[in-house]
């Protein structure tokens, strides 16, 4: 009967060095200074956070960085009971909230972790504010999480 198989595993992991590019570089530099930066399209005036080098709507290259507010409104959230790390779904001890937040001055929503004493305290429409690491070092974790304002 044809169709016999052998199994193969490969003890190799390919490594990549991906560049963050113009816009995210400035965003991260902003985080180091505890600022949240967006980019403003001169044509439609939309402000994208985090910034990128193009307006999705107008298809125009954009580079005008603007700082947006740090206290905003929680628009949507999910309660995470798991983490996905290297493709493995593993349960977490303490469920946590992943939210989409509208910051003042931003047209797009930013995603982030919402920390509250209990996950049941979280409601859409509530005000949340950015909480920074005490010592920022220029990476995404500088903006540690959001908490009720």
């Amino acid at each position, binding site marked *: 009967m*044809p*169709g*016999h*198989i*052998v*199994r*193969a*595993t*490969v*003890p*190799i*992991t*390919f*490594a*990549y*060095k*991906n*560049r*963050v*590019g*113009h816009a*995210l*570089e400035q965003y*991260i530099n902003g985080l180091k200074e505890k600022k949240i930066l967006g980019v403003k399209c001169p044509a439609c005036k939309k402000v994208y956070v985090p910034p990128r080098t193009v307006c999705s709507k107008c298809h125009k290259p954009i580079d005008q960085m603007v700082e947006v507010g740090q206290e905003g409104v929680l628009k949507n959230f999910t309660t995470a009971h798991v983490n996905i790390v*290297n*493709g493995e779904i593993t349960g977490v001890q303490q469920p946590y909230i992943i939210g989409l937040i509208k910051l003042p001055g931003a047209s797009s929503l930013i995603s982030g972790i919402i920390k509250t004493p209990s996950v049941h305290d979280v409601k859409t429409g509530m005000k949340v504010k950015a909480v920074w690491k005490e010592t920022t070092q220029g990476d995404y974790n500088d903006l540690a999480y959001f908490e009720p304002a």
Partner: protein
Amino acid sequence: MTQETRIIENTWDLTAYQWKIESDALDLYVKGLKDKKILGRKCHKCGTVYVPGPTYCRKCFIDIDKVVEVAQEGVLDAFTVNIADVKGNLIEHPYITCTVKLDGTHSFLMGILEGWTDWRSVKEGMRIKVVWKDVTQGALADLSHFQLI
């Protein structure tokens, strides 16, 4: 060139895969090697002889199950002279990797070519024969190399 931006390191983790690979062709091939025979499969429709021999014909797209023993002599097809290692450093003893077509087969076998003194005198179309290891055990390594006749 404008300013360099940050690198984020990422991977493609091949260790996470568990491949299944069809082995009908190699199963038969190594089974033959144990008895110092070269076995392949022949398409009963078009007559193509494959070594190692899959259980279907690529040209006719039909199942094939006719096992054939093929000659242990044939012609040198393509070859390359390995003069340097992967990094381009010259190696002490150059060796020739080649593909050969055993008489009566339509497929190419790859291996090491010996029986030459000056690689510049090696030419495509030269006659070759199979050389076996003294003790065979049903493994690819049983076929030691191809030798110029």
